[in-house]
């Protein structure tokens, strides 16, 4: 307990989870210096925010707490209880310090003690916080005028207990999946909380707090959707098709399915470009699922159009999917909008000149609007603006964030030339993940309709990618190809800075090598 509280390496035999988190600890270690004032600053700043960087702080401090309480054997536990009983005495004397407001109560006690001065004038809230963050260890060199050790200890341990409980509450309520994916972590945390609950010396508020946390850990979260089962392709081929289902049903169930995967993505999956590495299936399973499902739905849309032998049928199919995409847009399911836009701008569909000629003007306008919305121009500028404007629930297009993360990872180094951690890089990564998390937290109020989902998940409806283009050629032979491009503007036409020039850009899409005069 006397050693430095910030440890960079997990103890031998720590859970794999602890090992993983120790990376977070390494990163935050620099932010938590031993210097008291800054330690208190860090603590104060990190509390009100909901951020990933904060999460790292939280994890790392909890980690050191865990090590302190559970890693070091029985000794720390006894010290907790003994201090706790002293604290109780102290509390009785002074009256009322409120749970959680450590600094304030500290100052109040200073004043209220009058002659029997408990604290030297050199004691500050920052010192108390520094001590609190290093849990129950004693200050290295108590000032000469310091009061008897026991009283000081008791205040310190109050601070420590409340702080530990607060950190735990934050971790459990904001990142509960950590506990449900790691039984050992959950068990240890519950043991610890039970111990707090059972220790007679603690305040009722602390008992209550521990009991609340225990309840959270006992009951699995409500939303335990079994993704594997939900996304299992139907056993018997679906009887539904795009004519039998309404556009609203399709759009809502697309959104339902997309959200189920999207909300299950763990923040860790976004770190270190995990989804491109050879162990991606282990490190980023939900990101992979998201992309696989995205491609599946796009291919389904392409297939449902190409399957129609008649021109009228294809036109109807395109118009139906355009309607679905438009509803998805209203539901703020931008991922769904892109799935359909990607399909409509896929070469196999895009080249069907005669079909596009017959598509109604309103549908074409809808599609054009959505293609402007999802254009990758200027790093998805329009889509980003829409995302910043919209209120959750919302499903963003994940690829945009994955690109951002890739550029951050590859464009900057993890360490500065002096060997220090590159904090601005870590903040940028945290910024992206925080934005994603914001959208993950608000669920849709859509009920699962199995028959529609079966249609959406039926692999049997999809024409293999290699076959799509040849089928498209069979439907409308090649001679028409050259001019087909002119029928509707390219989804992501070459960028020109001013909006008025966009018209010309669509002409440029017609002839991609066209010189595009910037100013006329």
């Amino acid at each position, binding site marked *: 307990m006397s050693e430095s509280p910030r440890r960079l390496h997990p103890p031998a035999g720590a859970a794999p989870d602890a090992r993983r988190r120790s990376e977070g600890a390494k990163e935050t270690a620099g932010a938590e210096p031993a210097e008291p004032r800054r330690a208190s600053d860090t603590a104060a700043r990190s509390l009100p925010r909901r951020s990933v960087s904060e999460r790292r702080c939280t994890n790392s401090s909890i980690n050191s707490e865990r090590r302190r309480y559970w890693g070091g054997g029985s000794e720390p536990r006894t010290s907790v209880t003994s201090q706790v009983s002293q604290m109780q005495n102290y509390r009785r004397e002074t009256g009322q310090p409120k749970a959680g407001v450590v600094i304030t109560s500290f100052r109040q006690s200073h004043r209220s003690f009058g002659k029997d001065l408990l604290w030297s004038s050199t004691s500050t809230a920052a010192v108390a916080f520094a001590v609190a963050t290093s849990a129950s260890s004693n200050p290295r060199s108590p000032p000469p005028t310091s009061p008897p050790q026991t009283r000081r200890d008791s205040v310190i341990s109050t601070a420590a207990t409340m702080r530990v409980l607060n950190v735990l509450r934050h971790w459990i309520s904001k990142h509960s999946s950590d506990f449900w994916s790691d039984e050992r972590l959950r068990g240890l945390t519950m043991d610890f909380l039970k111990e707090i609950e059972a220790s007679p010396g603690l305040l009722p508020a602390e008992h209550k707090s521990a009991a609340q946390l225990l309840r959270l850990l006992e009951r699995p979260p409500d939303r335990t959707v079994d993704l594997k089962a939900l996304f299992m392709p139907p056993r018997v081929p679906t009887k539904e098709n795009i004519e039998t289902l309404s556009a609203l049903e399709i759009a809502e169930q697309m959104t339902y399915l997309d959200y189920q995967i999207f909300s299950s993505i763990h923040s860790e999956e976004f770190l270190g470009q995990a989804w491109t590495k050879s162990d991606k299936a282990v490190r980023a399973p939900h990101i992979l699922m998201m992309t696989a499902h995205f491609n599946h739905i796009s291919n389904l849309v392409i297939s449902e159009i190409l399957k129609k032998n008649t021109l009228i049928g294809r036109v109807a199919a395109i118009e139906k999917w355009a309607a679905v995409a438009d509803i998805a847009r209203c539901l703020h399911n931008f991922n769904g909008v892109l799935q359909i836009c990607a399909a409509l701008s896929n070469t196999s569909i895009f080249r069907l000149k005669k079909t596009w000629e017959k598509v109604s003007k309103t549908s074409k306008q809808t599609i054009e609007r959505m293609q402007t919305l999802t254009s990758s121009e200027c790093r998805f500028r329009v889509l980003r603006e829409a995302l910043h404007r919209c209120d959750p629930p919302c499903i963003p297009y994940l690829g945009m964030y994955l690109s951002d993360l890739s550029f951050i990872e590859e464009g900057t180094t993890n360490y500065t030339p002096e060997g220090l951690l590159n904090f601005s890089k870590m903040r940028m990564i945290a910024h992206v993940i925080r934005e994603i998390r914001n959208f993950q937290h608000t669920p849709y109020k859509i009920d699962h309709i199995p028959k529609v989902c079966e249609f959406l998940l039926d692999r049997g409806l999809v024409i293999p990618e290699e076959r799509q283009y040849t089928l498209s050629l069979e439907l409308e032979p090649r001679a028409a190809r050259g001019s087909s491009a002119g029928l509707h503007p390219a989804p992501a036409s070459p960028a020109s800075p001013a909006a008025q020039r966009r018209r010309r850009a669509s002409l440029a899409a017609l002839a991609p*090598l066209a010189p595009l005069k910037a100013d006329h």
Partner: protein
Amino acid sequence: MDYDYLIKLLCVGDSGVGKTSFLYKYTDGVFHTQFISTVGIDFREKTVIYQQNARQHRIHLQLWDTAGQERFRSLTTAFYRDAMGFLLLFDLTNEASFLEVRNWIEQLKTHSLSDDPDIVLCGHKCDLQEKRLVNQNRAREFAKNYNLLYLETSAKTGQNIDRAIEILLDKIMYRMETSVEYAMLCASGRRRQSLQRLQAKQDRKLCSC
């Protein structure tokens, strides 16, 4: 921003071959720390002066790569149609990425608007000589068969990075110049329609605005 031409290039290749670092090097490693929060700033842009027949053109290059999005296949193929030229990268220390080049060419031919798109093949990471698995002659031979230009590049040393883009730009500008001249001959009052017809006939990219 003032420029005469806007040209969009796409960088393709297997994930991990170094597409991002290639483009990153080319754009002089300019990286805005605020770029994440600033909507619409793209660091994959560069304006260059291009000399053509004693005339100077300001060319605004947009360099695209699908970094991080490779797996959204259904979407990325749509990007091909918008690019005017392609940098096709493989990793000299990774044989599989070289074998994939053939598929990439097929993909580009299917999904880009031209049947004969302008492609420069780059054997990347040539600074790692001791780890090299793809022999230079083998790569040259392959490029020759497909009528591609071949360069060996390294983002670490900067070798041939600028050169690769200059060569690609040469090809594009040459094609554009010949197309524009040809278009001038045929196109009169109803330029757009005639150009469309021309394109249908030849499946070549031409237009003048």
